[in-house]
């Protein structure tokens, strides 16, 4: 670690992982409710569990992105963070707001939460992923402002590397596009049209810049490959992400009101969205192959490669599977959408956060060459357990989706099976999904345990020798 202020990333990473555990637990509750409708339903109705599951995901990824930025920007800029104090303060503000919001979801009926937070003054609640009370949304804006200001000032006074510039455009985009969450017109079509300016422009736009920048940073560190080479790749990858992804938003405009030309534009541009993800795979494997040194933190390299592969599968392959309009006509809003959502969020965003944690946490804990061998071994097991079980969840949901479409969507009206009857038929696949979800949780427990595996005596000796 080059600068003391990078350490402010630590609480961000720890809290992100705590929320991650919560996300998975609520996912398991929902998975059971899919097959056993009475499970916990009087205490945690499905809509509440889902809101907690998705909102925890968004918030823990934001904590992860913030931690990643606070860690890498000072090092890239070659200067201390502008204000470590502000970073610590915004951590507590964000954590308190997040916890209060989740408790609000769980403790009072949603309609009551809307009343006590004066939603009627500026109604923004009750839309998918943007369920937070308006006051929480304002809090998110304040935290983002403090964060972007802090990171921006650090970049301004220091080196403006490509990684810094790509990261900061991503972070500014994240903050700016979130402002669309405050626009909630009475006209549902307009509401949906601009709702995507938050959701799509985040996950298929500016978040990809953050992903690319963090991945490039870790790859420079663990491979020692010349920055010039990595930076050129980074520029090309994020350029293609934006060029395909911005108008690629059209694939969400097929069936919600906008005109027919979106069928063409959305299909063509979003069909190109896998290209930058494919390049990310080539790039990651190429620089690891051409590495200049053997970094002691081998598992961080595994995470970096895994992120590229799983992001390509989840966002690229599973996205392409149903992005062409004639296909999407039948798949839209089916279990196939859920399959894509799970693998894309995990592969691209959950994994990039775990990549930077895997690289940076050992350094912040005084282990510049990574965790002890035993800890890395356990982390590697957790890596495979989580990746394979999430692939399994995705495959199960893909089968469920294809089956659902065959029963409910393809036949003519009159012959098609109704929604609930179809869901009953899918129950065996939903059970498989739930079991694989439990395996994922075990993988996550193994991952968290790996933080507590200590060094052997000989490792301690060699560390001390290196320190002298």
């Amino acid at each position: 670690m080059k600068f003391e202020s990078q350490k402010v990333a630590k609480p961000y990473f720890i809290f992100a992982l705590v929320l991650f555990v919560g996300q998975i637990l609520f996912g398991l509750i929902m998975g059971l409710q899919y097959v056993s409708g009475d499970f916990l339903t009087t205490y945690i109705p499905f809509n509440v569990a889902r809101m907690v599951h998705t909102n925890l995901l968004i918030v823990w990824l934001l904590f992860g992105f913030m931690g990643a930025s606070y860690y890498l920007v000072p090092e890239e800029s070659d200067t201390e963070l502008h204000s470590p104090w502000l970073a610590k303060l915004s951590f507590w503000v964000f954590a308190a707001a997040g916890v209060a919001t989740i408790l609000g979801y769980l403790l009072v009926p949603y309609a009551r939460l809307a009343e006590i937070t004066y939603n009627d003054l500026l109604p923004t609640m009750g839309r998918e992923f943007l369920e937070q009370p308006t006051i929480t949304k304002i809090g998110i804006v304040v935290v983002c402002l403090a964060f972007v200001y802090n990171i921006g000032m650090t970049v301004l006074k220091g080196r403006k590397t490509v990684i810094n510039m790509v990261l900061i455009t991503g972070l500014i985009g994240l903050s700016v596009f979130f402002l669309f969450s405050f626009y909630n017109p009475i006209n549902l079509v307009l509401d949906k049209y601009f709702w995507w300016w938050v959701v799509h422009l985040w996950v298929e736009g500016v978040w990809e810049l953050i992903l690319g920048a963090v991945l490039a940073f870790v790859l420079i560190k663990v491979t020692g490959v010349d920055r010039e080479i990595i930076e050129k790749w980074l520029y090309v990858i994020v350029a293609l992400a934006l060029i395909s992804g911005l108008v690629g938003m059209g694939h969400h405009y097929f069936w919600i009101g906008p005109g027919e030309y979106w069928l063409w534009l959305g299909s063509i541009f979003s069909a190109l969205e896998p290209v930058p993800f494919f390049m990310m795979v080539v790039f990651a494997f190429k620089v690891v192959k051409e590495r200049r040194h053997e970094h002691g933190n081998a598992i961080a390299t595994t995470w970096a490669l895994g992120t590229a592969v799983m992001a390509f599968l989840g966002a690229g392959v599973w996205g392409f599977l149903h992005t062409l309009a004639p296909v999407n006509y039948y798949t839209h809003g089916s279990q196939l959408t859920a399959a894509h959502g799970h693998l894309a969020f995990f592969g691209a965003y959950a994994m990039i956060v775990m990549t930077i944690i895997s690289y940076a946490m050992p350094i912040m804990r005084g282990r510049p060459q990574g965790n002890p061998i035993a800890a890395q071994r356990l982390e590697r097991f957790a890596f495979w357990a989580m990746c394979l079980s999430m692939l399994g969840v995705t495959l199960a949901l893909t089968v469920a989706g294809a089956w659902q479409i065959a029963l409910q969507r393809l036949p003519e009206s009159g012959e098609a099976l109704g929604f609930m009857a179809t869901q009953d038929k899918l129950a065996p696949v939903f059970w498989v999904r739930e079991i694989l979800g439990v395996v994922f949780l075990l993988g996550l427990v193994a991952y968290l345990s790996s933080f507590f595996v200590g060094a052997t005596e000989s490792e301690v000796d060699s560390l001390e020798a290196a320190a002298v």
Partner: protein
Amino acid sequence: MADRFTKGMARNVYYGGGVFVFLLLVGLTFDTMLELPKRDHRENITQSVANGKHLWEKNNCVGCHSLMGEGAYFAPELANVFDRRGGGDEQVFKGFLGAWMAMQPMSVPDRRKMPQFNLTDKEVEELADFLIWTSRINDNDWPPNIEG
């Protein structure tokens, strides 16, 4: 990558390409805004439809259902529920919706449970008006059949 393709060129593709495509998106959005009134029939948005949308949001209906295919996939699609359950007759649909909302949660073991939202008759009417208006949006003929 080839040496002829320099980092400076890559940078220009990133900033130039990004800005160009974003402007293209803004232009397409302006065009869509001009076209939408013919497709969403906003002239039919009454106060009741507006209240219905707020009820939809306040009760987090999208946490289980989908609306035009967006939302959760736990419970049936509702953008065409007017056609499916009302057969295109507004009074029939309102009668159905009132009865349906009143009987939740149904005591069928293991069936996915819809909570009881305690809506008033007026609120049921408003929610129905919102769903009826929604069913008439031109959404390029989605979903493929009545089951949603």
